[in-house]
């Protein structure tokens, strides 16, 4: 068994995070630990964001979160920024997307569970993402336990994504962590036969159930599967290896599909 992904894969972990330290500034030690840890496993680039799980996140708060990401991007070119906003504040959110993507070179938008992905409140953000040609990475899951259901009443599942694909046909959507949020089989059964070129799913999360990545490839097609860890580094690499991908599948999941997303960016 290999213990790190080969360099030729140019592996991108497109779903990860940085955080604030006790002083409110970027926790650079933690960011460095992420850089070091990913190197060990052969992960070259790391998509980072700093989402907040509050019911409502004020503009000052999401701007501060994104400043941390900008600081991390300055710390290492290996970091790829994702801009977090809350659709409760559409004007400020769109302006913040403009700032992060255009001015600071972030690669995508990160949304959390403030609204379902298919909610009309997302429209200004979806339109902006489509205009810029950048993807929206959405926190997702089909959780079945009472605590998560109570804590995250608007977490998006696969059904919400299918609805969003129809409602916002020009926007690239990435469903987060098939292994991080509940009944992954339900999500995959719901997604079977998805044909949209705007739909992607990432394999991150701590769940490493036997067959989870292979079943994901079978359900949505290898062209829609993205490598990611969401901080569970060995789990991410381990479950990818467990799927026993062909070289072509490895290439697509680790970097090829992400490159295809990036190539659609309109704002250079």
């Amino acid at each position: 068994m290999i213990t790190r992904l080969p360099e030729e894969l140019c592996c991108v972990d497109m779903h990860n995070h940085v955080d604030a330290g006790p002083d409110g500034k970027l926790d650079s030690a933690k960011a460095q630990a992420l850089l070091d840890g990913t190197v060990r496993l052969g992960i070259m680039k790391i998509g980072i964001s700093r989402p907040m799980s509050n019911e409502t996140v004020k503009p000052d708060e999401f701007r501060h979160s994104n400043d941390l990401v900008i600081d991390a991007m300055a710390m290492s070119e290996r970091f790829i920024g994702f801009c977090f906003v809350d659709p409760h504040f559409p004007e400020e959110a769109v302006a913040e997307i403009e700032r992060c993507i255009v001015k600071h070179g972030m690669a995508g938008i990160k949304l959390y569970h403030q609204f379902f992905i298919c909610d009309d409140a997302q429209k200004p953000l979806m339109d902006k993402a489509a205009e810029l040609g950048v993807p929206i990475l959405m926190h997702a899951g089909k959780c079945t336990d009472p605590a998560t259901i109570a804590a995250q009443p608007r977490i998006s599942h696969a059904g919400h994504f299918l609805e969003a694909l129809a409602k916002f046909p020009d926007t690239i959507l990435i469903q987060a962590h098939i292994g991080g949020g509940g009944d992954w089989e339900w999500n995959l059964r719901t997604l079977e036969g998805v044909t949209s070129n705007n739909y992607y799913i990432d394999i991150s999360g701590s769940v490493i159930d036997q067959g989870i990545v292979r079943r994901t490839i079978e359900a949505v097609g290898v062209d829609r599967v993205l490598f990611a860890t969401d901080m569970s580094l060995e789990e991410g690499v381990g479950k990818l290896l467990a799927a026993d991908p062909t070289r072509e599948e490895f290439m697509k999941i680790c970097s090829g599909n992400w490159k295809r997303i990036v190539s659609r960016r309109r704002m250079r």
Partner: protein
Amino acid sequence: MFDINTTTGHWPFRSIPGQRIAELYEYMRGFEIDGAAITNTHGLFYMNAQDANIELAEAMKPYDGFFAGVASINPAYAAAERDLELCVQKLGFRAIRLTPLYHNYPLEQAGEVIRLSSELGIPVIIPNEIVNFRQKHWMEPPAPLGLDPVLQLCRTYPSANFIFTEGTAAHDGEYPSNLYFELSRLRSSYGGVLTELIRNVGADHVLFGTGAPFKSAESSLLKLHHCDITDEERQMVGGTAAKMLLHL
């Protein structure tokens, strides 16, 4: 390599590849794992869990000592202590597994069984959860067990040894010396959680485990490979510690 955390038998809520013992054996050997502690998943669901232990003993026979039996004991059911004695003395089992959330009893009720395990010199394995709680079937427990009740048991029964599987080691105070951790849910490369735990409790108190066949084995192997410990410590975590604990 010795895996402290494997199971065989049918899981009713999801189709799991490789749940037959012959498949698990081949799977383990494919990773050059040369021994494993094993429990029968049926023991979670049978009213009379002892039947699951008898099934397991029979299933293990062709594998010539590769598997170390872990008895499913339900202290809330009839004859639990007799079952435990039979499992150890007649069937050669090396540990017991307690699953209070599946057998529906408070852990305090396991006192007699824990005392007897201690007398018999076998450890008590307590899983935090069987599958990740966020994907639970409606018939399964609503939440994981957590480390706190296991810490309490460690203090109440200092002569017994406890192995906490499928959980993290997050805890502010000192760890009791009779508590052992299985590593499959601990982070390694990112932040060095596993390395730190080994420094804290000792390499002989952290045990390699995969959770197969529920989970794929690769990530546990990566965790052990990438933690910053000496070769001697890696050998200890990779199997020596578990074998000592199980008297193998």
